[in-house]
């Protein structure tokens, strides 16, 4: 900045402190509630300072909720979504930038058009597709009057592919890679062509190594968004052992309905589901911000 101004510096500190309080307050209070006994919350209200019951509560959550399975589910599904989105985005962008083809704009528009279709507005028919993956094909065959061809039923609900596949298309990722490829000098591909390298060689040996930063930025962003997903795991899982951690922790309630709600355990379970994404954000902030700015522009 240009120069220091004592009054505005003081004001900036006040506002930033209030902002940090606003941002961390709910998380801090959740931590406080998770570290005292439920009886204390009910008798004395929520504490303003952390207590000493955190590990007792976490232990009880681990006992009552299969956190290891849920965490594993979250990691597998999130991993599949990250790999899927990165691979599909990079390949599609490669196809639309580096080829002279009439399908170019068709591909790009088809992918970009999905920005208009958030999951929330197509949730029920998407659920129907996941329950019968080849259903659309059957309907099309019926429409063409060749419905006699048997089409098998494939139900991917309650499976890892079913949790990941509907989420792996990425308009923003494709856009990000396309922007990046367009900034690369065209000498690269001319040289590759002169050396007789195939498009695939060019992609693997030249483009991928150059894209490391973009993979890191987009990967961090996608990891966090996929981890936070709630609606799709909610409708795509019936079995509790297929749930993701965010969903499982949100549904964590005492097994016996006659019991009082175990608020402190609920908060402890919630905090457990927050550890991985907060770690990623705090540690990989540089990549995360880069991804967010790239996607937003």
């Amino acid at each position, binding site marked *: *900045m240009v*120069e220091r101004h004592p009054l*505005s*510096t003081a*004001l900036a500190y006040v506002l*930033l402190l209030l*902002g940090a309080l*606003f*941002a961390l307050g*709910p998380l801090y209070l*959740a931590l406080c*509630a998770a570290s005292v006994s439920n009886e204390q*919350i*009910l008798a004395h*209200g*929520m504490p303003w300072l952390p207590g000493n019951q955190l590990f007792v509560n976490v232990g009880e959550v681990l006992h009552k909720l299969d956190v290891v399975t849920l965490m594993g589910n979250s990691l597998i599904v999130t991993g599949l979504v990250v790999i899927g989105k990165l691979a*599909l985005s990079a*390949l599609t962008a490669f*196809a*639309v*930038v*580096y*080829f*002279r083809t009439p*399908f170019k704009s068709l*591909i790009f528009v088809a*992918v970009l058009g999905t920005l*208009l*279709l*958030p999951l*929330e*507005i197509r949730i*029920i*028919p*998407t*659920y129907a597709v996941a329950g019968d993956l080849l259903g659309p094909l059957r309907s099309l065959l019926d429409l063409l009057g060749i419905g006699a061809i048997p089409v098998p039923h494939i139900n991917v609900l309650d499976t890892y592919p079913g949790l990941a596949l509907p989420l792996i*298309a*990425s308009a923003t990722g494709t856009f990000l890679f396309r922007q990046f490829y367009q900034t690369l000098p*065209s*000498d690269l*591909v*001319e040289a590759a*062509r002169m050396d007789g390298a195939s*498009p695939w060689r060019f992609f693997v040996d030249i483009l991928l190594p150059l894209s490391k930063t973009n993979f890191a930025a987009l990967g961090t962003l996608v990891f966090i968004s996929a981890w*936070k*997903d*709630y*609606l799709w795991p909610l*409708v795509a899982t019936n079995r509790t052992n297929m749930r993701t951690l*965010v969903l499982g*922790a*949100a549904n964590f309630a005492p097994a016996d309905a006659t019991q009082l709600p175990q*608020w402190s355990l609920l908060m402890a379970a919630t905090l457990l*589901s*927050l550890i991985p*994404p907060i770690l990623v954000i705090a540690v990989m902030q540089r990549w*995360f*911000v880069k991804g967010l*700015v790239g996607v*937003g522009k």
Partner: protein
Amino acid sequence: MSHNAQFSQRFLPLFLALPQLLAVLLFFYWPTVQAFWWSFHYVQPFGGSEIFAGLANYVRVLHDPSVLSSLGTTLVFSLCSTLLALSLALALAACLQLKVRGYKIFGNVLIWPYAVSGATLGIIFQVLANPIFGPLAWINHLVPEAWAPSAKGWQAMTLLVFAYAWCQLPFNIVMIVASLQSVPEDCLAAAALDGATPWQRLRDIQLPMVAPYLFFVFVVGLLDSLSNSFGLVDRLTHGGPGNATEILAFKIYQDGFVGIDLAGSSTLSVLMLVVVVVLSVTQYRYLSWRNRRREHHG
């Protein structure tokens, strides 16, 4: 890019893009077509018959008081939460931009809420808002039953607006900081030499220069608030009390999965799609206008 700089295979690109094309056809376009189809039919649940209904579903839905109230609720929720998140983010981004000592730590911490799923935050806020033992319980000690978000619609809505603004804050801060950084440093240095205070520089130089960008962040925020708020609403208020916080995305889910009204839910989906398209076109037209203006100014 010159023609020399491209490969000439015609069908290879189609093959490369095939996985993504399959994913979007199967999970985006087909379900959307299906929703349109259902919105023009009487549909019986569980694979029953479908009878063409013309516009009957639209007439029914648009005369349904719960739909109209849901549209109003969505408007109030989206506008309030987006504006709140935008103004808070603008103030904080301007402070970060002063680069006071330790600003990087503040910057880091202010982004943390991005890690929290709406559903998770809903659970946390439900506990925080508890009228008996929550941090706001003292209100009820002063005035009995004054704070009761599970009974008073406007309090539930206020809670929801705050909670969603909390979720939205990091994205807005990152975007606004990036836009403030695009203001040329020498402009600010010149103004400072002329004796402009940081506040004057913000008001007279930075704000006018990033104003169009703020509009862009605002529209993106509106779009996000239409869909991304589902988990928060589901966990914090569940659309209640009554239907005071039943935003459109929640109603689509609720009518479809709980009410098993495929036609009605799909009709709502189409209406929401219209809103999304209108907002996206606004955003797109703004972007192309900005690009034209940039080229014009060199």
